[in-house]
């Protein structure tokens, strides 16, 4: 590996990550992809999931991403996400309660076609991914 690539994760509210990374692996909508330095310019949408990267000190780090898109340039990866949280910033209690709420809504079969149902499914997915990111071991 010739060097480090700059990773930036920005949300509309703030910049979440801005540091050097050895490798970045992001959840593309057509499948996960990894980016090293010198990558061809590349643009992809992202799905809900976890972005992981190896920082300059060889520590693997995880960031929760709730959809968005990523742009890779030879020296830099920019991730634009609606919301993003580093593992340590994830609010476990909130994610858990969100999961329970979503599950409760989903069990209500009468509203299967409802918009709420779709929303609940997306909410459940988000909550599960948050928990998964938070649960990964160092």
């Amino acid at each position, binding site marked *: 590996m010739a060097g480090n690539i700059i990773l930036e994760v*920005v*949300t*509309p*509210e*703030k*910049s979440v990550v801005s540091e050097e990374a050895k490798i970045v692996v992001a959840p*593309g*909508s*057509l499948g996960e*992809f990894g980016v090293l330095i010198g990558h*061809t*310019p*590349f*643009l*992809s*949408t992202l799905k809900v999931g976890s972005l992981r990267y190896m920082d300059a000190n060889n520590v693997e780090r995880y960031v929760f991403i709730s959809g968005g*898109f990523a*742009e890779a*340039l030879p020296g830099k990866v*920019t991730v*634009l996400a*609606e*919301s993003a949280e580093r593992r340590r910033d994830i609010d476990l209690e909130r994610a858990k309660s969100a999961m329970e709420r979503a599950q409760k809504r989903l069990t209500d079969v009468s509203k299967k076609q409802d918009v709420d149902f779709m929303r609940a499914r997306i909410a459940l997915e988000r909550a599960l991914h948050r928990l998964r990111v938070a649960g990964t071991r160092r």
Partner: protein
Amino acid sequence: MATLKDVQIKIGAVKKTKQITRAMGMVATSKLRGAQQNMDGFRPYAAKFAEVLGSLAEKAGEGASPLLVPREEVKKINIVLCTSDRGLCGGFNVNLITAANKFMKERSEQGLDFSFTNFGKKGRDWCRKNKMEIDSANLGIVGARFGFNVALTAGQKLVDGFLDGTYDEVYVVFSEFISRSKQIPVVKQILPIPPIETAEEEEVDTDKPYQAEHICEPSPAELLGDLLPRHVYVQIYSALLETSTSEHAARMAAMDNATTACNDMINSLTLAYNKARQAAITAQLMDIVGGAEALKG
């Protein structure tokens, strides 16, 4: 001439008012700082977004998404009216509402229908009073802390409404924050999305020319289809941020003026008070002197 007591009471009242206006001014100042920080936090996202969108739009060509295509016959227009929830901020809300009203007048000769998506209580109250059609009203957002999801929910509704033909055009009326002493109401079209080359977001690093040739996943057209609705949310979010910041700035200015006006009033009242007091003393002296003269006589 007002009696001494009257003037004294009045001075007290004005002083109390001054305390309130000054406190409100200080609150507005600190909130303005927070709002400006939010705006600064959003800037990198907006800049990057505009950059990527611009290069994609070029590649995907025109007519790539129904969101870009203007309707031939426009019947119904939705106006997203951003105002503040609370008053005491000078001409802020009036200016915004006037801008919306003027825009409606300009367009109304073609027999168009209007409906409103309100952010802020003042705008909603105006719509109610004038019997406008209100599609949704969102209170407690402008001027407070809010997240991107607010813009997301509202934006989704607008995009859906546009796609199923409920609206043919969507405009947003908001207050653009230019400086602490200047905010101007702006009417901006958000749907159908106007040509993107003229994206007015601020550039972030102009020193680096943008490399346009990307591999896209999925195809550029699909990517664009995914990004365009987000573009609408981004526009709404930025309008809300601008309006919030403007509100605090407007309130700050209004309260500053009010405090100055209070000072002027206190000055002139104190003068009147001193005059009245002096007049009373003089009258008393005249009495004593007059009495003494009479005794001598």
